């Protein structure tokens, strides 16, 4: 191994670890400034509690079991709502991308509904479902539906027609054509939809839980506000941020393993 190779090899092996650290530098710096500002008393504790106080509140809540319960409830609502809404959106995207008749039949209607902000339906949803689980699931599913639907449809429509013609020439039947050409071709776009949907999923859930719920992270934050427990309010917000990041990481991971052929996801 030459000197240059040795150096390059070394750099390659060191880079990923550095990359992993770099993305957390800014959050750490913000945390540090926050702590200093609070403990020096520049900001009164009833406006913004210090990170240490938030951690303490988290610890207390963790010990009482309340925190784990509320996170679990919110997580369950997010996942189930996402699966229902995403599944239906994916199914409609497939149907309308593959069948012109289905597209003619449903697309106009769906585009009309899409332009209604789904959070505007909260009053109606409370009237229909009360503050039961189904109200939250309905809102999350509705919010998640559109990004998944639109991007699945777009992905299928933009599959290279030359590849489809190639598949036909080489004797693929409709099933094979879908499995080997259309679906893999639409996958990058479907993932874009999924990542959009994950953002909307948390947003919807927070709003729904703060307005109408008797458990969950949003409910926890609202309860804390009632009793002026600002550290718990901040704690809930931070947990939302972490959960959002976790959801994004999961979808990135899925993209990396399923789209390794794609130039945008190649490993360096």
């Amino acid at each position: 191994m030459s000197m240059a190779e040795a150096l390059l090899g070394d750099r390659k092996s060191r880079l990923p670890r550095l990359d992993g650290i770099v993305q957390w530098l800014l959050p750490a710096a913000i945390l540090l400034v926050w702590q200093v500002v609070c403990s020096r008393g520049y900001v009164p504790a009833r406006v913004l509690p210090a990170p240490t106080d938030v951690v303490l509140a988290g610890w207390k809540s963790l010990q009482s079991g309340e925190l784990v319960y509320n996170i679990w409830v919110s997580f369950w609502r997010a996942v189930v709502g996402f699966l229902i809404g995403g599944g239906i959106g994916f199914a409609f995207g497939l149907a309308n991308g593959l069948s012109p008749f289905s597209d003619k039949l449903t697309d106009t209607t769906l585009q009309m509904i899409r332009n209604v902000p789904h959070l505007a339906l909260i009053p109606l949803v409370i009237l229909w479902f009360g503050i039961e689980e189904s109200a939250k699931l309905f809102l999350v599913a509705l919010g998640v539906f559109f990004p998944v639907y639109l991007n699945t449809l777009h992905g299928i429509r933009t599959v290279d027609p030359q590849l489809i013609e190639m598949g036909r020439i080489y004797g693929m039947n409709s099933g094979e054509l879908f499995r080997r050409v259309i679906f893999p071709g639409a996958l990058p776009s479907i993932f874009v939809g999924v990542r959009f949907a994950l953002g909307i999923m948390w947003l919807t859930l927070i709003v729904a839980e703060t307005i109408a719920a008797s458990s969950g992270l949003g409910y926890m934050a609202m309860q804390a506000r009632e009793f002026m427990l600002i550290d718990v309010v901040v704690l809930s917000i931070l947990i939302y941020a972490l959960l959002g990041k976790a959801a994004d990481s999961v979808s990135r991971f899925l993209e990396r393993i399923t789209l390794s052929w794609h130039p945008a996801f190649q490993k360096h």
Partner: protein
Amino acid sequence: MQLSLRVFPPDVDFVPPAKLIEQARKARRAADPKLEPRPGGLALTIRDLRKSFGENHVLRGIDLHIPAGQFVAIVGRSGCGKSTLLRLIAGLEPATAGSISFGENVRAEDVRVMFQEPRLLPWATVAANVEVGLGRQRVRHDAKVRAEQALTEVGLHDKRAQWPRILSGGQKQRVALARALVSRPRVLALDEPLGALDALTRISMQRLLERVWSDQAFTAILVTHDVSEAVALADRVLVIEQGWIAHDVEINIARPRRRGSADLAALEGSILQELLKEDRSADA
């Protein structure tokens, strides 16, 4: 003693491991002679073939017989209908009138097309892309072996596990050629397959095409706008003008043909002159 000096064009990305290819051929013949019949080419008869797109009459009555195993090149100006003729022969589009018959029953795998674009699946490895070419034979147990043999034949065996995106343009076209050949077609329709390649890669691809054609004896129909390519490769050059076959030229020059030789150049010149006649009459 006579010394013959053969000057090869520089091989840009085409380095066929000649020994490997020979071994693969032997192995294929030895493996199972029944499984790999050498069917040879199919003869092709076209009668009064017409194709219109609305008011636009692209083909106005083509009559043509191509004997089995012939290498036919079709040249013409852009928009003359040469690509349409090829797409009709390959069964990609229905004819408006007239008939194309192959003399005997053909399976779907007997006629293969190669396009100007490689049309490889970006999400499938090179070997999986070649396996696509087996069509309905893909389920057979030897699919993988055959795909690898076809890749060896085009000199890309070592790239079998790669994604297509890392290949050069010429390599992608060679994968497309392997995919077209893996089902042992009896007719190979080529729609300007080398049109997008640089000059040196084109020359090495032409030699590859000529080699597999003489090895497998299929009927080759090559649409090209490059007259020198047509006369270098084909037994016969058809000149199409405004939906008709204007000229049908036999190329009786022994193979291997030497590029740039006087007789090839003379033929090329006369065909080009025919193609450019329109311009001159317009100028006058």
